[in-house]
């Protein structure tokens, strides 16, 4: 027996009453996107300090912004997956909620904004560190199905909310 709504204690189930609109997606999409993001961020690190490097960071910032604020369907790597990869794959065993990968896009956006501003102001070290963090997260997501929201969301709430 599973109980997920203890009304007396004011408990609610995260899986049924999350803050985001529930959209189900193919779980292979975000992992494919994570792989491309890994390559893009690696190029950004290698070309750090050049105009091309700044352009790469700017591009990835826009990609993360689209994924986080508009949706995974608007994200270019998601579009690549749906257009070229998904039609060649068998149907996914099960669908997944889009909220966790969108949260990861938002965290990635945060790092990339810092990286972009720092790069534009000539702060190469800060920019390098910010891109490095985003690279680690993207790589772990693509290679090990690492769930960023699982690791940082509750810890963040614990640190930032008093009640």
């Amino acid at each position, binding site marked *: 027996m*599973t*109980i997920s709504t203890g009304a007396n204690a004011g408990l609610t189930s995260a899986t049924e009453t999350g803050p985001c609109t529930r959209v189900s997606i193919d779980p292979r999409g975000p992992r494919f996107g994570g792989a491309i993001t890994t390559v893009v961020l690696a190029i950004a690190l290698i070309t750090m300090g050049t105009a091309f490097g700044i352009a790469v960071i700017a591009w990835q910032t826009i990609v993360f912004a689209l994924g986080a604020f508009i949706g995974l369907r608007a994200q270019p790597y998601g579009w690549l997956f749906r257009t070229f990869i998904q039609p060649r794959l068998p149907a996914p065993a099960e669908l997944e909620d889009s909220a966790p990968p969108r949260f990861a896009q938002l965290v990635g956006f945060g790092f990339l904004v810092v990286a972009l501003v720092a790069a534009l102001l000539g702060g190469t070290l800060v920019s390098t560190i910010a891109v490095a963090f985003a690279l680690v997260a993207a790589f772990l997501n693509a290679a090990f199905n690492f769930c960023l929201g699982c690791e940082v969301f509750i810890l963040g709430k614990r640190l930032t909310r008093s009640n």
Partner: protein
Amino acid sequence: MTGFYLVLAILISATAFGLWYRANNGRMRTTDMHTAGADEHGGETIDAQTIGVTLGTRATLVQFSSAFCQPCRATRQILGEVSGMVEGVAHIDIDAEANLELVRALDIRRTPTVLLLDGAGRIRKRASGLPRKADVIAALGDLD
């Protein structure tokens, strides 16, 4: 070339971390049993009132979930199956964000985190990350 070596170093360390993560994620660990009975921080025992449901006569699986957590759904399914299969085992899924006080008292840091309580409400096992069904069943067997 510095950037290239930096990327290489990052990918190698991230791979090492990833392998460790995969090997340890979701493992049921035996919790420290040095103090039986509740303390004022709610460290070792959970009663029915705290989680708002009646405890299972044999065991209770207390799951903490969050909104941005992919494996929480699969965890919920696995624990639901186990509690449906094994007599006297209850399962509750708690939204960690809405219960931060409890989350702090139990030192929940990531989701999903699963606590396995015995019939008396003592926390006997703890797993963070998606647990394997066989491990959950084995952990229930360890209770007796």
